[in-house]
Each structure stands twice: as structure tokens, then as C-alpha cells.
């Protein structure tokens, strides 16, 4: 977990206070000057009361141009960002026809499958589009299963290392629809404190009791498990039906791996089931891209359920669950996303099949192995250089996600806009995705980035970092020129 320096916390709190004060003043003036407009709801309750959307209206709106930037090309290593302007102080943003070519450090394109690829999209995806059409317009159980879906499910099971797999059209809906099918009232879900919103929603929708353990802390997990098993359900003191522990492979806001071997050991000791969400780690980490189990040396048979998405490393869309044959067969009967939702679009399925074959090396080339080595080298190089420059970078070695701490809310638009003016597209993250005082910029490295791209990015980030003042750590003496000469 990140702990911010004392002085930085004070200044961040002070800046929030000033912004809140101005926001309240504006609200007051709005009430006084436009009181007639506010009273014309004709007996309906307003959509948001009072301060429910205070943060959105008064703080987020000021920096709205840093988010939802439209692009006009594929989200590859370089892409075209559409320029926008605003005539009313960021309340509405209008598109223009002009675009700027920027280096993309924000998209989840870990292995570089985002753009048209000579093996994947042209010709295979287009061929499957012409054969199976855009959509099947039907749920998987009715008439929406095609040969491609069956092929992809077998391939995923083989890739991940589990007996069987089931496919869904959207990663978010996978978590929201599967967790209620596995556990219900009388069960206990213990989830990591920094889990993704889809897991939280799925857990809430299941009706089971939810407990949280400190992020990545296996001993706290053990404490929680011991207490819960010993005391049972609250009020009734009956023992729990079952306990599921939900963790993620890579936490996308911290960039660090979960402590998988320790957590699995604890779960096995106390007979709890494990659910591993590998949304960001499948295909991107591990020697052959098999995910965090391969990276940390854990046998896939020890994890009960492995979930993942096809959006990030495979350049497609959708999600999957891999587990034993019985669990998968049961899910095919009960999971609402399988029974009711339109099945995944066939061209997207074909894209996932082709990219998985490239990673496995079954396309006859070693492009997959090259991509995997490239992303590992890129991540490690970039992270070490940033740390040498004095930035506070989070995340583990080999992880392609690196958050750079900004802390202060005003540095978010400063960093974002300054980088964009230098043709570097960066993602900045504020509340509510991260805690209020821990704003950060997040970089996602791709195998499509070349060494020159990364060096250019480092130069820009260093310059902007000096301007904005986020080099919280001392700078090492190795400068960028030495790096350039050493890599030539």
C-alpha cells in the first residue's frame, strides 16, 4: 500500500479544502441567482439530491477534458487523439475534425493485438465475419453457439491449464453473473480490499455476506478466516455453507501481483475456495503468457476458479471462466449471462482464437514468444528508468502496469494536459477510482512500443515531471543520454 509523505498529504488536503470552498460558494450563488429554475421539477424528486453529485459538478467538471478523450484510429502504439474545445468552461466539450498523433501509454494493449494484424484480423476475422455475420442475435443455449465458440472454449481451457472453460461476451458481466450462481445466502465471500467494481457488484448481487481483508495480506486473511469459521454466521451462529476468497492477478491501480502462493496455502488450510480474476495478467505475464500462476509458480489445479478477460492482451472483447468440468457444466445450466445474453460476436471470437494461437506459437511463427519477451523487457526498462529519475512508481518487476504517484489533485490536469501538448497520451486517475488523496497517472506498456518510443516517452515525462513537481524521490546520477548510448 502507498503511504504519502506528510507534507504532500497536508498540501493535498489543503487544495481539496480550497476547491470545496469554491464549490460551495458557487452552489450558494447558483441558489440565489437561479432559484426560479431549481423549483420547476413539478413535484418530481430531483435525480441527484443536494451534495450527492457535488464532486461531479464542482470538481470533476473542471478537469473533464482529461478524461474520455476520443480517438480516431486503432488504439495501437501511436494513435490519433481528436482535439476538443469548450466554450463554457469545460461544461460541454465539442469535437473538431483535427487530430494529433500521440504515443499511446494508456490503452490495455499489452501484446500489441489492437490494430489490424496480418495474421489475426486480415484475413481471418474478416473471413469469419462473412461466414457467421456480425452477431448471432441469440443466447448461447438457444441458437447462438457456433463452432467458433466451442473452439475458443477448448482453446482457453488448454491455454490456461484447466479442464474446461465457458465464454461470455463481456468481462464485467462475467463477474456480475457468475458469482451469484456460485454462492448465495448463507455463504461467505472474503475479497481483497482493492478488488475491481465488477467483483464488488457480483458479490453484492449474490446475497452472501461479504468480508474484506487487507490488500495482499495473507496473515490478515488467515485471521479473518479463523474468526469467521469459528463464529459462523452473524445472529444465527450457524456454520457457513461455503467460503470463497476472491483475489486478482494484477491489481490495475497498483500494478502489483497478488501474493498468490501464500494466499493459496491459507485457503487450502482452511478449506476455502479460491476465485482468481486474471483480467490484466492473462497473456501479459508469465514466461509463455499463461498468467500470474506461471509467473509465481503456482499449480493451476490449486485455484478453483480462474476468470479472465479477452479485452486486454488478446485485442478482442469478452470474458471467460476456467474450472473443472463439473463446475463449468453447472454454470452452463444456471448462469444467467449464458442463458439470456446474446452470445459473443463471431469475429471477436475469431480474433481471440487467432491471437491465442499466435501466443501459443501454433501459427507456425515465434511472434508470440517475441511479443512476450518484448513486453517484459519494455516494462522492466521503463520502470527502472522512471525510478532512477526520481518518480514514485508502484508495481512489481515484470508487471506492465506502472502507476506514477501524483497525490495533489491540481497536478492531474497539469500533467495530463502538458503531456498531451507534447504528443504523449497518458491516463490520469482521480477519485473515485483511487482513494481521495492518492491520485496517480497510470502507464500501460505494450509489446508494440519500440525502444525509441519508450525513450521519447521518458524524455517527455521527465520534462513534465520537473514542471509539475512530482519527482518525490532523489534522482540517480545515470542520465538519459547514457541510456541512449548504451542501448545503441
Amino acid at each position: 500500500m502507498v503511504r504519502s509523505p506528510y507534507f504532500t498529504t497536508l498540501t493535498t488536503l489543503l487544495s481539496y479544502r480550497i476547491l470545496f470552498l469554491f464549490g460551495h460558494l458557487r452552489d450558494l450563488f447558483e441558489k440565489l441567482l437561479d432559484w426560479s429554475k431549481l423549483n420547476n421539477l413539478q413535484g418530481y424528486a430531483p435525480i441527484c439530491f443536494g451534495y450527492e453529485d457535488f464532486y461531479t459538478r464542482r470538481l470533476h467538471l473542471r478537469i473533464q477534458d482529461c478524461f474520455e478523450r476520443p480517438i480516431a484510429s486503432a488504439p495501437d502504439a501511436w494513435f490519433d487523439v481528436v482535439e476538443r474545445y469548450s466554450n463554457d468552461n469545460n461544461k460541454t466539450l465539442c469535437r473538431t475534425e483535427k487530430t494529433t498523433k500521440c504515443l499511446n501509454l494508456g490503452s490495455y494493449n499489452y501484446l500489441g493485438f489492437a490494430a489490424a494484424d496480418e495474421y489475426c484480423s486480415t484475413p481471418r476475422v474478416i473471413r469469419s465475419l462473412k461466414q457467421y455475420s456480425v452477431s448471432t442475435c441469440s443466447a448461447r443455449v438457444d441458437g447462438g453457439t457456433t463452432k467458433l465458440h466451442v473452439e475458443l472454449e477448448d482453446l482457453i481451457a488448454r491455454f490456461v491449464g484447466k479442464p474446461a472453460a465457458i465464454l461470455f461476451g463481456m468481462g464485467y458481466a462475467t463477474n456480475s453473473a457468475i458469482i451469484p450462481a456460485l454462492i448465495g445466502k448463507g455463504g461467505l465471500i472474503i475479497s481483497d480490499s482493492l478488488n475491481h467494481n465488477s467483483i464488488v457488484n457480483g458479490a453484492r448481487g449474490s446475497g452472501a455476506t461479504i468480508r474484506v481483508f487487507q490488500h495482499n495480506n495473507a496473515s490478515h486473511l488467515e485471521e479473518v478466516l479463523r474468526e469467521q469459521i469459528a463464529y459462523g454466521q452473524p445472529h444465527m451462529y450457524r456454520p457457513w455453507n461455503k467460503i470463497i476468497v476472491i483475489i486478482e492477478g494484477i491489481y490495475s491501480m497498483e500494478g502489483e501481483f497478488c501474493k498468490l502462493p501464500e494466499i493459496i496455502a491459507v485457503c487450502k488450510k482452511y478449506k476455502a475456495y479460491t476465485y482468481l480474476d486474471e483480467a490484466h495478467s492473462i497473456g501479459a505475464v508469465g514466461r509463455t503468457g499463461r498468467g500470474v500462476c506461471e509467473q509465481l509458480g503456482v499449480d493451476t489445479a490449486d485455484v478453483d476458479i480462474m476468470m479472465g478477460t479477452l479485452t486486454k492482451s488478446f485485442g478482442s472483447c469478452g470474458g471467460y471462466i476456467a474450472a473443472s468440468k463439473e463446475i463449468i457444466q453447472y454454470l452452463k445450466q444456471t448462469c444467467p449471462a449464458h442463458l439470456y445474453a446474446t452470445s459473443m460476436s463471431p469475429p471477436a471470437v475469431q480474433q481471440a482464437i487467432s491471437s491465442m494461437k499466435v501466443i501459443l506459437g501454433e501459427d507456425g511463427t515465434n511472434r508470440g514468444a517475441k511479443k512476450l519477451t518484448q513486453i517484459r523487457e519494455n516494462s522492466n526498462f521503463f520502470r527502472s528508468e522512471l525510478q532512477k529519475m526520481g518518480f514514485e512508481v508502484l508495481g512489481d518487476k515484470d508487471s506492465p502496469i506502472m502507476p506514477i504517484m501524483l497525490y495533489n489533485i491540481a497536478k492531474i490536469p497539469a500533467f495530463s494536459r502538458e503531456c498531451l501538448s507534447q504528443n504523449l497520451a497518458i491516463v490520469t486517475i482521480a477519485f473515485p477510482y483511487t482513494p481521495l488523496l492518492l491520485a496517480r497517472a497510470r502507464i500501460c506498456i505494450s509489446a508494440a512500443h519500440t525502444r525509441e518510443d519508450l525513450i521519447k516517452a521518458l524524455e517527455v515525462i521527465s520534462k513534465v515531471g520537473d514542471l509539475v513537481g512530482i519527482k518525490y524521490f532523489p534522482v540517480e546520477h545515470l542520465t538519459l543520454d547514457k541510456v541512449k548510448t548504451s542501448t545503441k
Partner: protein
Amino acid sequence: MALAMVNVTASVLDWVSSAFDAPTRAVVFGVPIDGHLVVEALLVVVILFQLTRKSYKPPKKPLTEKEIDELCDDWVPEPLTPQITEDMMYEPPTLESAAGPHAIVNGKEVVNFASANYLGLVGNEKITDSCVGALEKYGVGSCGPRGFYGTIDVHLDCEQKIAKFLGTPDSILYSYGISTIFSVIPAFCKKGDIIVADEGVHWAVQNGLYLSRSTVVYFKHNDMKSLENKLEEVTRRSKHPEKVRRYIVVEAIYQNSGQIAPLDEIVRLKEKYRFRIILDESHSFGVLGSSGRGLADHCGVPVEKIDIITAGMGNALATDGGFCTGSVRVVDHQRLSSSGYVFSASLPPYLASAAIAAVDYLEENPSVLSKLRTNIATFFYELSDVPGLVLASHILSPIVFLKLKKSTGTGKTDMDLLDSIAKQVLEEDSVLIATTKRSSLDKCKLPIGLRFFVSASHSESDLLKAAASLKRVAALVIS
């Protein structure tokens, strides 16, 4: 020694008896204070003292580590999923071609009534061409959520196109059909709000209602009298109508029964009781109305009166994803507080361009709607006398729903009967149909049945073939 003890005891006894028999020493308020009153006063003090003491409770000891270890060793969890039985090994038919009106299943050509391809857009040339262009330009996936460089210009174009087509100020795209409604409802309805919903809504709506943690009141399926009663009851009970948000949640065409909601009546009730409407138009967008604009067009209600319209695009528009439309306030609110929009990767760009092409097609060829209506009417007429099954859907609904005239007893046996009908129809007459599937998580209590999704691209011979096949098989199986 003994003598001294006896003396002491005797003197104490003397003192006590003299205290008892002592003559009146004092008179207080006309009551003479005798010696025995002192003893009685002492007794009262003792009783009061005892009453104020707490009753005995054995002290609470927390469990020791050893006891916790024992409990943990003894605890046995249930298996993660129940035992798989024979009938759970069902595998659906696998398509080997596009899901058009004719599809190839297991090498044979079948007439396909299991795809909600209402306008016949599966396999349409123009849509395929626009998708090929989008794939070559943008690749397949969008690699990011909308807030972080996942917004591609086709998304914005698609949103504007849909808003313009429907006549609303703005719209917002979601990346999956069912996640639209279960993200929209929790974005607007919070704890303490009141929702009145139809009891026949499908699972995604039920999940959205559950996640919103509001108070949900169900009214009888498509029954306006029941809706009015519930609205009356809820309005009477709520004390501050301006402080509580209230919504009516209905579907335009119900997936579980094929009924159509009477929108003009609902709008009249909504205005009377000051509720907002959330309308799910997944199966009516592109189907109902003279120009395919949905239920509002069909009922002659101005679209501004409906507060929130959501729809999945996996039906008439033959792509994937969903959208939500309404006033600018409604749409802007979702951009930051709808979890399925904010925390999920955006729709693949080729699907958005397919949606644009589909809406263009609908605008240019409104005759496809009348073809669809003719097909539904023909089919309805043909299926009006199937032995053992009765039509339960509305005559304009493209989902033609047949339920059993008489239930066989349990839901399971009904399900088996319908499955055997569907299986025989597929194997013997090459007609692919769908039965209602109910997940164990689904709380809907409406009867199950057979569903036919009629398309504008079905020919009359397809419809007649399907009807004849169903009549033959139903006569055999339901005897």
C-alpha cells in the same frame, strides 16, 4: 470458658428481647416506633440491597486459539457446485453458418426461429461492408474503458445517430446488451427510493433492482389495475414525495411472455402519481411503430414523456451492445455513475459501425417493418390451433410465445416435455426453435413455453413449414 460463652449468649438474647419488647420510646407522626420496627426497617434495607445486585451470569470467555483450531478442522464446506445429473448434460445445437432465416446445424440446413433477427439484417451486405472497413481501420477490440482512450469516434457517431433517430437529446452506449439495464437502474435508484416493477421482468432487470437496494413493489404482469393500486398504496404511504425518487420499471415487449405494455395508460398513471418511467425496449426497438422507433411511436406517446429508455442492440439491429437514451441530465449522469459504462471496456468499434449501418438501413427501408408484421400475423394465424399449446403473446409481438394448455404437474416435467418437442421438431423437420430457459437465480413466476422469433426475412413457406411441424409433433408428444 463455656460459662463465659453461655453468659455472653444469654446477655445477647436478653438485649434482643428487650429490644423487641421495649416500650414506646418515640412517637413520630402519630405512629409509635416500637423495637420490632427497627428489625423490619433493617429487613427492608437488606431486600433493597439484594434487588439492586445484578443476577449471576457466567463470564463470557472468547474462544482460545486451540478451540478455534478445532472448529476450523471440524468445519466441512459444501461442494462449490451441486452434483451434476443426467439432464444437466444438455448441449445446445451448434451452428456452422450465420444465424439467418436458414442456418446449418450439424451439416443439415434448418429453418431458424431461435435468433431474434427481426429485420433480417444478419448477413446484410451493407452492414458487412461497413464492418470490414471498421475492422481494417480500428482492429477488433477497443482496449480500454470509455474514460481512458477507449472512446472511438464511431461510438460518438453511433450515440448521436441513435439519439437523432429516436428524437431524444442524447444517448449513451454500453458494451453488452444485458448489462445496460442492470447498470442503469442502480445508477438512478439508491437506497430509500421506491420502484414499482412488473413481476414478469427478465433476470437482468431483477438483478438491477436488487443491486439498487431500493424498495421494490411488484404489480401483476401487464395488469394496469394492479399497477394503479400499487401506485396508490405507495403514494399514500410515503410521507415526503419530493424527497424520494420513484420509478416505474416496465419492458416494452416482455421476453418472458411476449406481451406488450400499454404505454399510454402507464404514462397517464405516471403523470398522475409523479413517477419516472424506465422502459426497456430491447425487443421493440426497430420493430414497433410505423418507422420502427419503438413503443412510444406505436402508442402515439411523445418520446419526451418517457424518462429513461434502454435497449439491447442484439435483436433487431443485429449487432451487440446496448444503449440508453433520455434527457441530457439523464445521459450525463450515467457517464460517471453507471458501473457498466465506467468500469468496463467499451464496445468494439466494428459493432458500433454495424449499429450505425443498421439504423441507416431502417431509415431507408421502412417497408421491412410491414413485411415483419405480415409474417407475424400469418404465423399467429397458423399457430392458433396447435393441439396442447395455446398462444400467449400479443399479436404484434415478434416473439411468438406458446404455453402448455395444461401443465403436467411440476415445472421440471413441463420443461422436459417442451424440450422433447423442440428436439423432435429439429431432428425430424429441421426447424430450430427455442424453449424458455430459467436460471435458478431467476425469480420470474410466469409459465414457461416455446418461443419463436419471427423475422422479416422468413418466407411464407418457412412459416407454414414450422407451423405444420409443430402441430404434428405436439399432437404426438402431448397426448
